[in-house]
C-alpha cells in the first residue's frame, strides 16, 4: 500500500470530504448490520459515484454485496457498456435482471412499446429482491432531485409490497441508523441523499471517474416534440411531419431512452459541465425527465408503488 503524506487539517476538510465520509459511514452500516444487501447499479453517473464510495468504504476487501441492475432494455447502449466495463474492472459480481423476464412471466404487461418503461421497473426490482432475498438495497437517489425525495429518510423502510409510506417513516437522528427489518421486508438505503447534482460533478472531477460518453456534448439526431428535445433511436422515430435534426447535446441524466431528453450543450469536459451546472436555470429532472412532468406528485406516487 502506498504511503501518502497528506497533511490534512480541519481547514481542508471540504464539503465533498464531509459528504464522502458520511456516505462511507452509511455503506459500512449496511455491510455490518444487514444480512443480504445489494447495490443498485445502472451505469449512470450517480451510481458510478456510489461505486467509488464503495471502494473507499471496503477496499482492500471485496464489496460485501453484489451489484444489481434492473434493465428496462430501453437504456442507451453507451450506458450498458459502461456498466459492464466498470463491474468487470472492479472485479465485482454484477446481477442483471431484465423487464423482459417479467414480461415473459406475465407480471408486466406492456401496452405501448414506445412509452417509457420506468413505471414497470418496480415490478422487476421487487421480483429480483424476492429471488435473492435481499434485505437492503443501496441506491444512488439524491434528495435534491425531487420534492418527495427531499422528505425520504436515508434508511427508507419498505413493507412486503415494497411500498413507501411517507407518513409513517422512522425518525432518523444523528447518524444512528435503524436497519432492522422483518423477513420479507426490506430497506432502501440512499448513501448520497445529501449530495446535489453539483456535488456529483465535482466529485466525478476530483476522483477522475469514468462515465458514459453521452454525458459529454456530442452530435445527435433529435426531434422536437411538445417543447422537448427527444433523441432519435430504434424506439423513437419521427412521426409524419416531424423533422430530424442534428444538434449538439449532452445528457444530464441517462434513463429510459424514450423519456430522457438531452440538453443543448457544448460542454465536453467535466470542468465545462461544472461551469454549465453552476449557471443552469432548470432542475435536472425538469430538463430531462418527461415522465416527471406529468403531475406534481408523480415521483411520490411511483415511490409508493415500490420504485426506488
Amino acid at each position, binding site marked *: *500500500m*502506498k*504511503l*501518502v503524506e*497528506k497533511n*490534512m487539517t*480541519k*481547514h481542508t*476538510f*471540504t*464539503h465533498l*470530504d*464531509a*459528504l464522502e465520509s*458520511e456516505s*462511507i459511514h452509511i455503506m*459500512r*452500516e449496511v*455491510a*455490518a448490520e444487514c444480512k443480504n444487501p445489494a447495490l443498485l447499479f445502472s451505469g449512470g453517473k450517480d451510481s458510478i459515484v456510489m461505486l467509488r464510495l464503495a*471502494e*473507499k*468504504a*471496503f477496499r*482492500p*476487501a*471485496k464489496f460485501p454485496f453484489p451489484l444489481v441492475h434492473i434493465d428496462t432494455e430501453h437504456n442507451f447502449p453507451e450506458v450498458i457498456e459502461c456498466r459492464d466495463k466498470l463491474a468487470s474492472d472492479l472485479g465485482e459480481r454484477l446481477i442483471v435482471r431484465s423487464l423482459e423476464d417479467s414480461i415473459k412471466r406475465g407480471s408486466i404487461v406492456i401496452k405501448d412499446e414506445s412509452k417509457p418503461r420506468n413505471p414497470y421497473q418496480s415490478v422487476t426490482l421487487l421480483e429480483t429482491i424476492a429471488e435473492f432475498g435481499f434485505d437492503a438495497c443501496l441506491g444512488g437517489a439524491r*434528495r*435534491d432531485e425531487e*420534492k*418527495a425525495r427531499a*422528505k425520504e429518510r436515508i434508511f427508507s423502510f419498505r413493507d412486503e409490497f415494497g411500498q413507501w409510506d*411517507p*407518513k409513517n*417513516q*422512522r*425518525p*432518523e*437522528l*444523528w*447518524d*444512528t441508523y*435503524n436497519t*432492522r427489518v*422483518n423477513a420479507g421486508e426490506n430497506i432502501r438505503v440512499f448513501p448520497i*441523499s*445529501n449530495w446535489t447534482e453539483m*456535488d456529483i460533478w465535482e466529485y466525478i*472531477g*476530483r476522483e477522475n471517474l469514468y462515465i458514459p460518453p453521452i454525458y459529454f456534448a456530442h452530435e445527435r439526431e433529435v426531434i422536437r416534440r411538445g417543447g422537448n428535445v427527444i433523441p432519435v433511436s430504434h424506439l423513437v422515430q419521427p412521426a409524419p411531419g416531424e423533422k430530424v435534426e442534428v444538434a449538439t447535446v449532452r445528457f444530464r441524466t441517462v434513463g429510459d431512452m424514450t423519456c430522457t431528453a438531452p440538453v443543448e450543450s457544448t460542454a465536453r469536459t467535466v*470542468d465545462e459541465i*461544472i*461551469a454549465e451546472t453552476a449557471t*443552469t*436555470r*432548470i432542475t435536472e429532472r*425538469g430538463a430531462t425527465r418527461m415522465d416527471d412532468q406529468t403531475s*406534481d*406528485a408523480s415521483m*411520490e406516487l411511483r415511490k409508493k408503488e415500490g420504485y426506488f
Partner: protein
Amino acid sequence: MDTNTQLLRFITAGSVDDGKSTLIGRLLHDSKSIFEDQFSAISKTSEKRGMAAVDLSLLTDGLQAEREQGITIDVAYRYFATPKRKFIIGDTPGHEQYTRNMVTAASSANLAIILIDARKGVLTQTKRHSYLASLLNVPHVVLAVNKMDMVDYSQARFEEIVSEYKAFAAQLDLHDVHCIPLSALNGDMVVDRGENLGWYKGPALLEFLEEVEIDHDVNTSDFRFPVQWVCRPQTNEHHDFRGFAGRIEAGEVSVGDEITILPSGRTTTVKEIVTYDGNLATAFAPQSVTITLNDEIDISRGDMFVKTSAHPPKVEKEFEATLCWLAEAPLDKNRKYLVKHTTRTAKCLFSRLDYRVDVNTLEQHAVEKLNMNDIARVAIKIQSPLVFDSYDIDRSTGSFIVIDEASNNTVAAGMIA
C-alpha cells in the same frame, strides 16, 4: 472552481405564521438557488390560489398530503450553495405535536434559526424551540426577528424582543446566540441588506450563515473511534490484513499512538491509518478510515478505540439520560427495548422515570408513562456495558436511539448526562 468550501447544516424552527417557508423561499430565491421550472410551477400554483405575488413558501411544500392540507408534515431537506459554503436546510414544522420532528432535524444541525414574528414577540413556541435547540446541543442559534416590515422596521421593537429573549435564554444552555432583524417577505437582511434596516450593523442572515465558525462544532480533543466493520480481505495479496473500519467521531489519531480498546481495556498502538487514497499519518473527526494495529487483539463491531484525554469515557451498564419519546405507542416500563448507541446495539430496561419536562414552561412533572413528543429524565439499564460520554462532551458518543423490537420502529432518542 473552488471546492474548498465547508458544509453547514441548519434547521429552521417556527410556525407557518412566522413566515418560515417564506424565509427559506427567500434564501433560495435571492441566493439564486431556485430553478426556472420550480419557479414557474409555484407561480402557476400561486395564480391558481388567487394570490397577487408568487408565494415563495410553496417551494418547501413537499408531499401531496401537505399540498392538500397546506402544512408541512415532516422533516424535509433542502440544499443550496454560495461560493463560500454549501448548506443543508432541515425544514421542520412548528406545530406542537411535531416536537419529534424538530428533535430529529436538530440532532445533526450546526445551527438553528428560531423565527419570531416581530408583532408577537417571544411566544411559548419560541421557548419550546429554544429549549429543544439547547437540549440537542445545537452549537449556534440565530434568533431571526421576522416581519419587521409590520412594525415599521422599529429598532426599539427589535431591542425589546432581543432583551426579552435573552432573559429567557439565560435559563438555557445555549452557547452562541445571534439576533437578526429581517423581513422575509420583502427580502430585507436575508440575502441583501435592503433599504429599511439601516440602523442594524450586524451581518445579514446569509452572511452570518457563510461566516459562522464551525470548525469546533465537533469535539476535536477526545479521540473516539467506534469499530463499524472489520475488514478482512482474505485474498493472496492481503492475506494477513485485518483492519478496523469506522468513522472518527471525535478527536484525532496518528500512526504510533497508544490506544485503549473499550470495553475490554486492552491497549495497543496504531500501525496504519488506511484509506483508498493512501495511508495517512494522522486522521481526525469526522473522517472515515480503516485502522490496523500492532497487536493481535480480539476486536469486533461495537468496540471503541480511545486515547487518554481530559474526558475519559464511561464504561457502564446503567446511565441517566434525557429521552424524547417519538412513537405513537407510549413507553411501557415493563418491556425491554433495544438501545442503539454508536455501533453497538443492546437490550435495555427503563429502571426509573424521574420526571417529564413541560417544553413550554420547562417545569418538571411527575411521570408514569411517556407519550409521543414527551421529554423526560430517565434511568436506563443495559444488558452489556456501553462506552459513552456525556452528550455535552460529544454529541455522537453521548446519544442513542431506542428501538422497539416488536415493531422495529425507532421509538425514542436519548441524550446521556
